């Protein structure tokens, strides 16, 4: 009731104008046995004032621990300006910009976003976003299969990829009979075993997925994997943390053999991944229990017509002035229906609005600094923790702002103990990789001070003790 503006007088007037006496008459085409005004599980409505009070009482139970969990969602500082501007009603309450002339704000912002994201990845083009990282990877895989005109339906995916990305990809792509082939990681290195990769069959191979960093935080041999994919005429799909790309080599530069002749295949190897996708959350989006986040998808120009999702293009108006509009819509479900590149209808516009404002505030240098400080703080913490008796790094490859440690006692007990101190000390890997034993995936961002690290180390010593 609270948002229906009609007065009784207006209601009467409207009914009179329509030649009706009751609202109920408007439902007379619905079979009477279907009409049912009963909602039993739903409580009576409350005012905004009362609901806020109820919520405040509930929120008192919600703890706000010091968070050292990463594993696909990262707590970075978000400048106040990001959500204050993104929450403006004109951004918040607009919809997909079908009427371009009345949506230039959203459209220009998305064009700026496409530019920033494509450049951060070193790729030619970006779409206007997908739902989130894992489903974006699934869409990237479907796209790679389309590039091969559906003739190749096998995809190699490292086991070092986030296990929930694996699950999501399987749910989405297996309905189209695409085979996901796992590739093992080297148990010492914590990255894809290139020997194991080379043993895998390249028959019907559409793509190789290359995570950077991988689930363990380790840096994958991206150059070798990209070259291998290209030698097999498969696409290289980068699945990356965008924050990491401010510091690490971007997917567009992966591969070591630009222009080199591959003697075996007698082809020129191209540099760079073909598609780069991932989770955009680290760029100005709060943790928020897992969503809404946004997935990003970028690619080389030549694959743009196989891309799913919205694309914004620059054009001109009747007077020749520059403007922006949805473009290449002939790929999409509302035009192509059953022949569309994807069933996707929405993007995550609001989150992209926040990310665009965030990237503008940080700039190229500021973003690199955030990535660098996050990594430096992680290294500091790891260096101190491995001095504790029995605590060791599990993998020897370099990592980016997230690292796996083996503990000398039950990891879940340690986490429960740390939680009593108000610290979420990381993610136990027992449910994800039981073969690794008592392992902890720990992540530090720029939001953690040296004092926070002291508190962590103190607590850790006590609970391990």
């Amino acid at each position, binding site marked *: 009731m609270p948002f229906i503006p009609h007065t009784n007088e207006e209601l009467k007037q409207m009914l009179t104008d329509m030649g009706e006496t009751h609202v109920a008459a408007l439902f007379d085409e*619905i079979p009477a046995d279907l009409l049912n005004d009963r909602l039993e599980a*739903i409580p009576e409505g409350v005012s905004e004032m009362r609901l806020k009070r109820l919520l405040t009482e509930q929120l008192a139970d919600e703890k706000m621990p010091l968070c050292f969990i990463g594993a696909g969602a990262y707590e970075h500082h978000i400048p106040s300006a990001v959500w204050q501007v993104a929450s403006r009603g004109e951004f918040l309450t607009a919809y997909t910009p079908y009427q371009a002339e009345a949506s230039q704000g*959203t459209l220009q912002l998305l064009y700026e976003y496409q530019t920033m994201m494509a*450049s951060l990845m070193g790729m030619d083009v970006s779409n206007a976003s997908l739902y989130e990282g894992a489903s974006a990877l699934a869409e990237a895989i479907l796209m790679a299969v389309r590039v091969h005109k559906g003739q190749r339906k096998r995809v190699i995916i490292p086991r070092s990829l986030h296990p929930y990305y694996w699950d999501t990809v399987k749910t989405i792509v297996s309905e189209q009979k695409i085979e996901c082939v796992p590739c093992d990681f080297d148990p010492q290195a914590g990255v894809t075993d290139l020997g194991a990769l080379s043993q895998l069959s390249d028959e019907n191979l559409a793509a190789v997925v290359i995570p950077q960093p991988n689930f363990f935080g380790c840096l994958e041999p991206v150059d070798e994997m990209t070259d291998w994919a290209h030698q097999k005429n498969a696409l290289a799909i980068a699945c990356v943390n965008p924050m990491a790309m401010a510091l690490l080599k971007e997917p567009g530069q992966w591969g070591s053999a630009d222009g080199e002749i591959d003697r075996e295949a007698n082809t020129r190897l191209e540099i760079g991944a073909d598609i780069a996708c991932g989770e955009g959350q680290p760029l100005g989006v709060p943790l928020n229990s897992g*969503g809404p986040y946004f997935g990003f998808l970028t690619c080389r120009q030549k694959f*743009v017509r196989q891309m799913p999702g919205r694309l914004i293009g*620059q054009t001109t108006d009747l007077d020749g002035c520059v403007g922006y509009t949805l473009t290449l819509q002939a790929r999409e479900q509302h035009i192509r229906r059953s022949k*569309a590149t994807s069933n996707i209808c929405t993007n995550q516009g609001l989150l992209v609005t926040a990310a665009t404002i965030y990237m503008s505030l940080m700039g190229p240098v500021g973003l690199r600094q955030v990535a660098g400080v996050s990594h430096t703080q992680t290294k500091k913490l790891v260096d101190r923790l491995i001095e504790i008796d029995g605590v060791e790094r599990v993998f020897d490859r370099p990592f980016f702002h997230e690292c796996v440690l083996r503990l000398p006692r039950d990891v879940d007990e340690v986490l*429960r103990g740390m939680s009593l101190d108000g610290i*979420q000390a990381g993610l136990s890997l027992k449910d994800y990789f039981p073969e690794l034993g008592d392992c902890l995936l720990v992540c530090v961002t720029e939001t953690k001070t040296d004092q926070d690290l002291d508190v962590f180390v103190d607590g850790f010593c006590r609970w391990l003790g």
Partner: protein
Amino acid sequence: MLIFQRSVEGRVALGQWVDGDLDLSDLPEAGLRQTKAVLPEVSELQVVRHYTGLSQRNFGIDTHFYPLGSCTMKYNPRGVHEMAMQPQWLSRHPLSAVDDHQSFLKILFELQQYLSDITGMPGVSLTPMAGSQGEFVGVAMIKAYHDANNDTERTEMIVPTAAHGTNPASAVMCGYTVKEIPTGSDGNIDVDQLREMVGPKTAGIMLTNPSTLGIFSRRIKDVSAIIHEAGGLLYYDGANLNAILGKVRPGDMGFDVMHLNLHKTFATPHGGGGPGAGPVAVADRLKPYLPIPTVVFENEKYRWTTKNDSPDSIGRLSCFMGNAAILLRAYLYIRLLGRKGLTRVADFATLNANYIMKRLQQAGFECAFPDRRASHEFVISFKKEKKQWGVSAMDIAKRLLDYGCHAPTTYFPLSIPECFLIEPTETESKQELDHFIDALIKIRGESETDPELVKTSPHTCVVKRLDDVKAVRELNLTWKPTIND
């Protein structure tokens, strides 16, 4: 002007600079980035002013009447947004221990119960992130059900020609062949033709009711009987739930599975194209296949379900818990309206649509189905106007922008030429509706006396009519410093 054109090399928003010496000695030199990303180098004020300026170049519900058919652009309560932006919610990591966050899980658990009540279906999973993902999930569950019964010959999904484009696209994503069924001249699905179409290959049907034509299919129970007798299942596209909220439950109509668009029916912000949320609800026989995670209450505690709890689940759809904070907003909206408020939504959404339709009919406009009631939306066609004065539905849509109304959905459904799909929603006042009706009448007058005025509109927006053909031909998707400056 683009943000990049405000950039000056070396400028940094110092208020956001993170102090700290970097130690990158452990990272291999060859693995580091050598190029500078094209991000602007601007001050904080420049950023705030630039994006505030861009926001002012948008129509939104907060600024304009926005009767976009099939999208339910109702008021998004500000209180809900504020309550959902509390730091306790924002800072909650998706993988944090459930013991620390029982009240958040309780909210999701209750939302599952509310949606079950509203849909008349016992099983709910909140994880799909949009209507289209809900559709994919629904069809995947239908497939899982047939597969579990070794009923693998069912390869066809029936979809009305008037359906949302996402329906056939989602069916194809699950490996089905789409069979289209036309709509009769009364706006109903052709039941006789349906009877001939079904058979041992029928996996199911995807329907909205009221349909995309804004009409309630009276013979829905016959449709459900035909499909079920043929061994198929019925999918309900919840895009139009606002029309029957709290009045008719899709479960009672005989549907086996459906999605809800929380960003439509439950007023969560559309955000310039997303985020949405598309939870699915199912009948008992599909419960084992619901996507994970869902929330259960056991031993006085709320927790997430995993593959161990539901081994037959079609699986996971996103890394974490879908668009969790959108679910929270929908919950708060339901609490504000309560059970009485929710049923009044359908009353007034239907009243507003029928009022506009009747008044436009009285003014001589051509409704697609003049003998039928409108649901929460209806279709009018400008075929006559196009023929007489050469003014198309698109021209009229653009001219509406000059009158301060966002245009309705144009050229959908595809089966009606030169059409608008108009959905005013329940939160618009009589004054707004009258203004819209008057604007359409005036524009029709202009179409007769000065068609060029309409054909070259809009005239008052920040840009004139944009060239969509050029956007495709001269594809320009990113700004490049050398070309554009």
